[in-house]
């Protein structure tokens, strides 16, 4: 199954290697990994999605904590969350067939961010299935997809704060639902909510 972890790490050289190397050592494939600044200076936030056996989540989390540069790890599990991915898609299109791509983009709430004589670029944000939906439709309508660039998933728990922020602020364990106890709020194919 897919596991999603949010890790707060020190913003130092080599930290990404340490985290990535840990998954390599455990023989676990990282499906997606996004890194960027967090709300705190000097602390980066990673969203790591990986495919691993169901029971592996605690062990992965415990192993992440053993890395000296890791400050906090949240196992999102099935807790209510918002997950987004950004994609840039370049499609071959000219003056004759542009307009129906505009329509498609409208349906998917995507934006056209670049237009050239022979191509255009679509920017789309949403859950994985929505992005894949657009790519699929583009392929089916014989529009030639030239390039796809996807950011990987970014995840944040719904509600007040994630555990990481609260613990970092010294507030102790927040009152949050236990991972695994709640059904998925957004099913993999139900992207209407997210469009």
């Amino acid at each position, binding site marked *: 199954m897919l596991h999603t972890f949010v890790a707060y790490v020190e913003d130092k050289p080599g930290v990404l290697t340490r985290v990535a190397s840990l998954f390599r050592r455990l023989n676990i494939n990282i499906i997606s990994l996004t890194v960027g600044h967090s709300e705190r200076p000097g602390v980066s936030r990673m969203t790591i999605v990986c495919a691993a056996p169901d029971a592996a989540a*605690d*062990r992965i989390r*415990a*192993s992440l*904590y*053993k890395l000296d540069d890791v400050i906090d790890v949240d196992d999102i599990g099935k807790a209510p969350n918002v997950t987004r991915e950004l994609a840039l898609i370049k499609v071959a299109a000219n003056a004759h067939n542009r307009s129906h791509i505009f329509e498609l983009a409208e349906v998917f709430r995507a934006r056209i961010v670049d237009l050239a004589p022979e191509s255009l670029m679509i920017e789309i944000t949403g859950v994985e299935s929505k992005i894949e939906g657009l790519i699929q439709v583009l392929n089916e309508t014989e529009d030639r997809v030239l390039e796809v660039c996807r950011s990987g998933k970014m995840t944040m728990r719904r509600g007040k704060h994630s555990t990481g922020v609260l613990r970092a602020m010294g507030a102790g364990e927040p009152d949050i639902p236990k991972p695994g106890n709640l059904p998925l709020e957004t099913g993999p194919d139900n992207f209407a909510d997210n469009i």
Partner: protein
Amino acid sequence: MNEIEKNDSAHLTTPTRLTGAEIVLATIVGEGVTEVFGYPGGANLPIYDALRKFPIRHILVRHEQGASHMADGYARASGRVGVAFATSGPGATNLVTGIATAMMDSIPMVCITGQVSSRVLGSDAFQEIDITGITLPITKHNFLVSHTEDIAPAIRHAFQIAKSGRPGPVLVDITKDAQQAAAIFDFDAAKPKPYNPHPMLSVLEGHLHEAADLIRAAKRPVILAGHGIMQSNAGEQIRTLAERMQIPVGMTLLGLGGFPASHPLNLGMMGMHGESWVNDAIQQADLLIACGMRFDDRVIGTPSTYSPNSKKIHIEIDPSEINKNIKADVALVGDLRQVLEQLLPLLPGRDGSAWLNTIAASRGTAAVLDIKNLPDSGHLYAAHVMHDLWRITEGRAIVATDVGQHQMWEAQYYRHDYPHTLITSGGLGTMGFALPAGIGAKVACPDKEVWVIAGDGGFQMTACELATIVQEKLNVNIAIINNGYLGMVRQWQEFFYEKNYESTPLVSPDFVKLADAHGIPGIAVRDRGDLEAAVQTARGHQGPYLINFLVEQEDSVYPMIPAGKALHEMIRRPGSNPLVEKPEDK
């Protein structure tokens, strides 16, 4: 710049301007280090240049692998952090095997390597290697330091990491220009942030009661005693638990010594080469209390067949070990000693006689210790050597073993009653470990008798350290168990590869002459009758002594559970040998 005087420690209390090299040494002195194992080279010469100013004994090794193994042996024997120095490039890569050995066995160690100047970092300069990259998966953490003012904080942090939680090795790589430049050294200001325990440690009140209920209700409990007993100094607590609740104790290889071998509740070593009554007891148990051990595959055989009817209580400091190999029913994640201190008040006592009698019966019907089945036809068996060494040294020596058959025979026949008396590479299984690790142990404990026991194969991997023994005037006794084969591999070829003895017969030098070339006296022993005299000569000799035990060539370690089999599917010593039992075998 102020000139530092040896034994002057003013710079530890007053901020002083020092070179980076001096800061390295001042910091480790501040951390309590008195001995360092190392080898100089271009990229750490500034440190060696400053060495004479500090109250540190430097042991010059013959190969950097020796330095990391010695630091490891030093740490295992003393419980203190071992320190190794090496230069950049090949010096640093030679440390790697020793670092990995320490990582697998959770040994606190700090390795300080020189690195090329920061100006040329990344340019493939002479003797440049990315040692922090190489050691990333085999250290708890590592540092690349390229600014003089970062040296003291990095080293102090390294010591904190090495010692804390589940211990392990840390490497600090320091560029040559950082060693040469000067900065204000302020030991107190370089103190690391307070140690932050692993956030997933949890010893919940409810879990303690659950564990206590399981222990009180158990009919067939077994304690599995591991290395954590030594690491958290919990020998007394384990003993109280076993005695008060009348629970038998099985030992892991690295746990040997954590609970006295002569104690009536001690069943001996479990696992691949454990005795049948230990493994049978585990298979039949209804409760396993795992204390500071990690259910290594050499201990469990296969997870699916391991102790199928038992509940498991896992007391362990590393949360990532919980449910890794064997699923725990109750996990108490914390320092073993602290957990047991919380658990013991909930355990008033218990009558365990029925279960102990069952085990005693199975012990009686099992073909007793294999040593008693050895034909005493003038041939010398390694088991005899271990047994007699134990008897002659009264089990008080520190024994550093290598890896292979002799390691298992040592574990079976040398009965360790005291903690920190067995120094052996359990997790990584590193051949060549014994000699340097024994040297490290002797440096840590100069008043203890130290025996290095190695096979003829493993000994030759690090035999160059004989010269280190001589140069450092160390009174280390060496026993080579010489069977002319890479014995354990030969045994696997015998059992699983139809006796195709490919590349296991081994030509060796005359070890007595080799020792003699180093100025170390020695003797060859072929007969059990000559054994005791040789051992006593070695013990009485002021200085190192080597005994070359020429043992039975094609003997195997019994019993044996083939890799991946269940604990009860063991291979026993063929029964046709005449039983000869000597009074001293009892």
